[in-house]
């Protein structure tokens, strides 16, 4: 298994070398980190200096999502509802990634996502919710999400989000 992984890694490294003119170093770094994550290891994205915002009214989920992002080396803040997510952006803060819950008091995830997009916020927003009915997911996606994952969130689901959203540091 280890030899197989080494073989694959070598092949990928050669491919990346050949595509060097099209990929930045950081892009390669993130790609390899995600690759190793999908092979079962936890990537450390601290060098990428990604930032994230956790938007969830549930204290248990706040704690878990904050820790998951920490584990991946992603600095993150936590707010309790959609209104706070909007307010924090109005104060001038910006994030690479927003993990948005759907059901929250004051302003829910759908309303908050729409509002943030209206404000011109281009951060990647991933919906994270227990609601998985097709119609509910569709409504959430149409509000302006870039990706969606069903709770409970795990390391592998979070890595999947990062992979789907093609995160890389601009040169």
């Amino acid at each position, binding site marked *: 298994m280890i030899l197989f992984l080494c073989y694959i890694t070598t092949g990928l490294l050669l491919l990346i070398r050949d595509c060097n003119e099209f990929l930045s170093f950081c892009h390669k770094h993130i790609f390899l980190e995600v690759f190793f994550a999908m092979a079962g290891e936890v990537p450390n994205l601290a060098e990428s200096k990604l930032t994230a915002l956790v938007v969830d009214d*549930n*204290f*248990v*989920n706040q*704690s*878990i999502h904050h*820790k*998951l992002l920490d*584990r991946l080396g992603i600095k993150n803040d936590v707010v309790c509802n959609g209104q706070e997510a909007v307010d924090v952006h109005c104060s001038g803060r910006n994030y690479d990634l927003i993990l948005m819950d759907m*059901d929250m008091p004051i302003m829910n995830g759908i309303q908050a996502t729409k509002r943030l997009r209206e404000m011109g916020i281009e951060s990647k927003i991933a919906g994270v919710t*227990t609601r998985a009915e097709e119609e509910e997911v569709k409504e959430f996606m149409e509000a302006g999400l870039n990706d969606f994952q069903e*709770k*409970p*969130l*795990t*390391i592998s689901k979070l890595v999947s989000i990062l992979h789907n959203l093609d995160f890389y540091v601009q040169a």
Partner: protein
Amino acid sequence: MQRQVALIKQSLFDQGYLDEQFMELEELQDDANPNFVEEVATLYFKDSARLINNIEQALERGSFDFNRLDNYMHQFKGSSTSIGASKVKTECTMFREYCRAGNAEGCLRTFKQLKKEHATLRKKLEQYFQLARQAGPKEIARRPK
């Protein structure tokens, strides 16, 4: 003592009190947060006690507001799912089905069972965490067989 801790944890999985999500949380523990799972569990039981209280008050009123009850239980289920509280999660799901069916008796019956499962899990996890602290730094979490 480490073996005793491992056996208690294994039994929690074997008896269906916990599911894989609990293992996911244990894998987040590190030197910076060696008691992360216990901290999350503490948060969960504090939050769920509040929800149980809210639901009890709503049920005691007599007139069943199934929408409100369903909302409370949605939150409860969400927390229970996140911590891996499998039996509690199952009762939450059943309660919500009774809410959607407008079945008051089913809600009452399920809520009684839910409180029982919740109390049992709390007691067992408190025992587990106490023993784990006495045993010292834990070995890396392993998935139960």
